[in-house]
């Protein structure tokens, strides 16, 4: 499948700010499921900094905007060919030991509810792969897709207790549950082409990856009860949403920030 991406993120400030600095993780991962055709990331009036590929295989690029800064506009335009790998992250070069993904973060802190859910649904199973599938399904059922009831700071435990949330909450809850039964898990950010049935998911998407000994990292999208296929574009990963954020940035000063994001994903007819 050939997908096009048109993604504009605009931070507007009510008063002019000092210098703005951004760290972008907005580049498609290199693995058997993706082949980059063209991909351009720019920041209006920005100065491109250094770039590198980190130990988890993600490309990161620094940018800065000189003061005074009224707004920061990050634009991603790209075309990419995708293949279904049944969720398996095959051919992805990375160095970080899977065990580094057993660490808890404040967003993926495991409470009794998460621990109990993880234990119950995987009871009697010995295969990690089965456990992962079972967990993903259980989280999808336990948290109903409901926009606007959670925010960026909602933790996995809170989302589960609430029974509602968006893809970030599904991913956090799945990661936390997996780690609680010693399965290394991580947060993945990317894009998803909305399905033809018009399921109400944003094009900017997030899901989880779970490490299965013998196979490697496998993606699980609990929100859509599936594993990522050719409708997904993978960008980067981290211990939680904050670490995997496609854009991390800061502008110096006390102004109020207003965020405006538009993402358009299209499929090129062949």
């Amino acid at each position, binding site marked *: 499948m050939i997908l096009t991406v048109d993604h504009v993120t605009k931070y507007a400030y009510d008063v002019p700010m000092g*210098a703005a*600095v*951004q*760290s972008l993780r907005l580049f498609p991962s290199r693995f058997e499921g993706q082949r980059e055709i063209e991909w351009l990331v720019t920041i209006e009036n920005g*100065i*491109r*900094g*250094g*770039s*590198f*590929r*980190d*130990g*988890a295989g993600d490309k*990161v*690029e*620094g940018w*800065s905007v*000189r003061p005074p800064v009224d707004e920061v506009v990050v634009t991603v335009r790209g075309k990419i060919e995708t293949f279904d790998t049944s969720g398996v992250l095959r051919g992805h070069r*990375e*160095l*970080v*030991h899977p*065990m*580094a993904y*057993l*660490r808890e973060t404040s967003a993926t802190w495991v409470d009794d509810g998460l621990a109990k859910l993880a234990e119950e649904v995987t009871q009697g199973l010995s295969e990690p792969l089965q456990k992962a599938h079972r967990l993903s399904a259980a989280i999808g059922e336990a948290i109903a897709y409901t926009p606007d009831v959670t925010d960026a700071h909602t933790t996995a435990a809170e989302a589960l207790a609430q029974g509602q949330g968006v893809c970030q909450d599904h991913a956090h809850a799945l990661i936390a549950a997996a780690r609680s039964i010693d399965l290394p898990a991580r947060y993945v950010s990317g894009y998803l082409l909305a399905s033809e049935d018009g399921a109400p998911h944003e094009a900017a998407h997030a899901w989880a990856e779970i490490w299965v000994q013998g196979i490697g990292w496998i993606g699980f999208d609990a929100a859509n009860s599936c594993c990522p296929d050719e409708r997904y574009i993978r960008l980067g990963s981290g*211990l939680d949403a*904050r670490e995997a954020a496609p854009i*991390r*940035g*800061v502008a110096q000063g006390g102004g109020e920030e207003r965020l405006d994001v538009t993402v358009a994903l299209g499929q090129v007819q062949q």
Partner: protein
Amino acid sequence: MTDYFNEMFDGGKVRPPYNGLDGWTREMPAEFRAMKQAEAEALFRRIGITFAVYGEGGDPDRLIPFDMFPRVFTQMEWRKLERGIKQRARALNAFLLDVYGRGEIVRAGRIPARLVYQNDAYERAVSGFVPPRGIYSHIVGIDLVRTGPDQFYVLEDNCRTPSGVSYMLENREIMMRMFPNLFRENRIEPVDGYADALRRTMASVAPAKCDAEPTIAILTPGHFNSAYYEHSFLADLMGVELVEGADLFVEGGFCWMRTTEGPKKLDVIYRRIDDAFLDPLCFRPDSMLGVPGLMDVYRSGGVTICSAPGAGVADDKAIYTYVPEMVRFYLGEEPLLENVPTWQCAKKDDCKYVLEHLPELVIKEVHGSGGYGMLVGPKSTKEQIEAFRHKIIDDPDNYIAQPTLALSTTPTFVEEGVAPRHVDLRPYCLVGDKIELVPGGLTRVALTEGSLVVNSSQGGGVKDTWVLAE
């Protein structure tokens, strides 16, 4: 009653390194000594060498107590230590490069993966990165204790930003000023090359992109920090700028200093702030001390940070047990310096032993430092021991235990004259294109009679440390 090794007196006999000091103290009149002590204090205060003690009221400009009685090593003793320290520094750096790379030592089963990769000090953000010359820890401070003429133990390693080197330099400066005759009569190896060596070390790890004489700066958390004096002292001696996070910014893949003549490119940062505060975009988002975007510049090779972020995983007290293993694995050598036998409370059997022997052991927090959060069994009351027992049971992973070592003593000036007090030693090993060790270090002394805790925050003092020339 434990028998402690006295570094000066062997029975009634003076050990050779101290020959030159025996007469000196014997002949020193009490008034002269008091006068010199006052002179030393006035000098320290004038220079401004003070330190702040966390969480205490009182004088914010407290002086660290200085004992005028030097601690002495022979050239032979020192050479042996030097070889051991350099060996250890090499092994620790090899370990860091490895665990942020392929992790061969873990794959080989020589260190448990959990200890490394689930360690809080393991920075996933730098994995896959090879810093200039492959060095993560450019200044390795190794804390040593002595229990006999030939018996030294490593108490702990400091791979991040070992402090206290300014005392090593100032103690010598003040001794030379007050007792020039001692230096005429005893041939003592100089330590004042340290600042130059440090600058050379930093310059030797400048990024590949730096094509001119590298610009170096020391990054301090600021003037409220207890070690600010040391930061400004070192910057001055090295002839480099002392900067705070707000003095720096990133642009175009480089790090810049704000100067009165506009931005100036910075190539090497000797940071004296913790990893967590270096870059709010990468680590703690609430950090006001760091430089946003610094880690991206670092990882793309625009600037070198010393010590490298993530270096802390090598000096963790749980990893400490495995340092001899690192020496064997990476260097194919037998360790020249011994570790203190250590029980890991995280291990069930060890924990059981520890809980049964609390009154004889020293218990430390895995991530603690500065002598805080530790229990010295033989010096503690029943209540203190019981309180610690509960702490260990609640969180065994957080504690290790070691036998109470019979720390050596050296003569120290006290109220009544001269008396033996327990000491340790921290030499500073520099790792760059060369591995260097100035002949000397910081000797810390427990000034309270019988005390084994030498930390300055716990009432310890410092001494000048001599290495005799051949």
